[in-house]
């Protein structure tokens, strides 16, 4: 019982699907055949990536660092230890490599979106190469490694945070139940009514003068944040 609008649109040609269907899944569905060495990757990286991400993926200038904070131990366990609350931190901040569990994600993303100012300009082998180069910086693969569609599943088994992800269905399903419960107390509710945190002084005017970010009429005016905060 097809609807009267059934035939609006047209069939996609195989070439068209090929041109756009570029996603690569964790099970490597979508991954094109190819291979790239760490060395090729380093060349591409230095030419097309390092200006933004730093020679070793460490730069915090254009985006947060890609590399850092993972250990040999993490590669064994598949869990980045530094992520645990209270753990000694091994990097100034969370890096991409500390978080990413699936090597497919790196391949897919670099292939679709990098270099940032020229996305989709890399050849498949070059993507294999830069992924290999990044993995070598994180000591996931040795310096003479050649990453390919044949061995990428093996490399997946060494991803430092490969066991670091959990799927928590209640936050994915609309009919799930929240993990945090409050009750709608109305009177004499438990609260210490003390100020646990307030805006640091340096932040008062860090967003400009708030006076100029509010309407010139109404029940309130913007606070003049060129003057000190109320005591």
């Amino acid at each position, binding site marked *: 019982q097809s*609807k009267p*609008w*059934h035939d609006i*649109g047209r*069939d*996609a040609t195989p070439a068209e699907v090929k041109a*756009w*269907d570029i*996603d690569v*899944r*964790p099970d490597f569905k979508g991954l094109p055949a190819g291979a790239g060495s760490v060395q090729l990757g380093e060349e591409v990286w230095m030419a097309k990536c390092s200006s933004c991400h730093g020679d070793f993926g460490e730069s915090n*200038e*254009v*985006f947060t660092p890609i590399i850092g904070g993972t250990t040999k131990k993490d590669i064994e366990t598949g869990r*980045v230890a530094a*992520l645990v*609350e209270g753990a000694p931190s091994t990097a100034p901040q*969370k890096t991409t490599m500390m*978080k*990413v*569990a699936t090597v497919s*994600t790196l391949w897919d*993303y670099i292939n*679709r*979106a990098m270099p940032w100012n020229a996305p989709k300009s890399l050849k498949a082998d070059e993507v294999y190469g830069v992924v290999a180069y990044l993995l070598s910086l994180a000591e996931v693969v040795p310096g003479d490694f050649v990453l390919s569609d044949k061995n990428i599943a093996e490399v997946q088994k060494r991803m430092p945070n490969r066991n*670091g*992800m*959990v*799927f*928590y269905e209640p936050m*994915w399903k*609309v*009919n799930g*139940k*929240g*993990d945090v*419960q*409050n009750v*709608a107390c*109305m009177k*004499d*509710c438990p609260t*210490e*009514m003390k100020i*646990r945190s*307030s*805006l640091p002084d340096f932040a008062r005017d*860090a*967003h400009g003068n708030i006076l100029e*970010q*509010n*309407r010139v*009429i109404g*029940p*309130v*005016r*913007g*606070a003049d*944040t060129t003057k000190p905060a*109320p005591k």
Partner: protein
Amino acid sequence: AASATAATRAVAAEGEDAILKLPEHTTGLGLPVVTDGYGKPSKWEANLQRRQSPGLTRVNQASVSFTPLQGLFGIITPSGLHFERHHQGWWDIDPSKHRLMVNGLVKRERVFTMDDLMRLPSVSRIHFIECGANTATEWGNVAVPTVQYTHGMISCSEFTGVLLSTLLEMCGIDKKKAKYVLAEGADGSSMTRTIDIERAMDDVIVAWGMNGEMLRPENGYPLRLVVPGIQGVSWVKYLRRIEVGDEKYATKDEAVHYIDHMPDGTHRQYTGIQECKSVITTPSAGQTLLDKGFYNVTGLAWSGRGAIKRVDVSVDGGRNWRTARLEGPVLPKAMTRFNIDWVWDGKPAILQSRAIDSTGYVQPKINQLRAVRGTRSVYHQNAIQSWLVSENGEVSNVQVY
């Protein structure tokens, strides 16, 4: 501020000049119709702009601008003030060259022009869109000065488009195997996000219209996915492709970002629901009350799981609560405006709002949220927000629980 009040109220015995001396607009001839074929706000409203939060991002094409909630009314967000989130900049795409492809586990892989899509049966629905990182700065300590920066990555609009289910049925979706769809954008980032098939077949819209006109370029002109109740990153802009599949895709923005960092060091993936939340927008941090006395305390509430059932407001830091008035319409997965009376006695006060949705879920306190999720998360911070009113009338951002 006190002086501003004084100035606008100075009345001589005779009366105010603002009344006694007829203004030019009362004694002259104004501007013609169609001075602007497409109009714009009053010049007196120029303070209300979307703005960046300095230091939040490093480059302006992978960044955010925030909606000035402190000055807005009702539930509809003016499209000119809709918050922005771009990963690789925004474009004003020629819509006659734009295409939507549906591929994967379907009988017919199809291509649609905008002409095709806009002929199909459409729906128009009011929904909020909230970035999963909204209020992220407040997971730990207080960090930013106003509600524009704490909560301004949310907007609410009337969207028009064709249900994704209509398209999937047309393409002959494989009902046995299909478990997920992947949505993909046409911009440089070609943003990709996984959506489960139940949701895709439910209320997801392939939308071209926003608040009566076409989407604005910053919001995905000519086509974006509307995924009611789900964080904004899933509302893929410049939508070019829908793939039907049987596995989740673990794309960059569901494997490296938009994941919730738990105390045990794991990250929760695919936690897209924007849970029930509310915030008082006036008076709010960075505003100064003009005087003691009566105020209409007003704010917004919303839930990704359904409609808002109730909003309570406290003026004593959460010790006692009163139930606010909900302005209609109260719609599922849409913003709801609340209002409540308050007489300020000039003493310090701490304002909070707490929303309850149609599932009975009660918006949590920040300590309750932290007890479960720790303090290292970035996303999905839906805690009760506190504003301190100081004796001089200035309101500031605080944490109280």
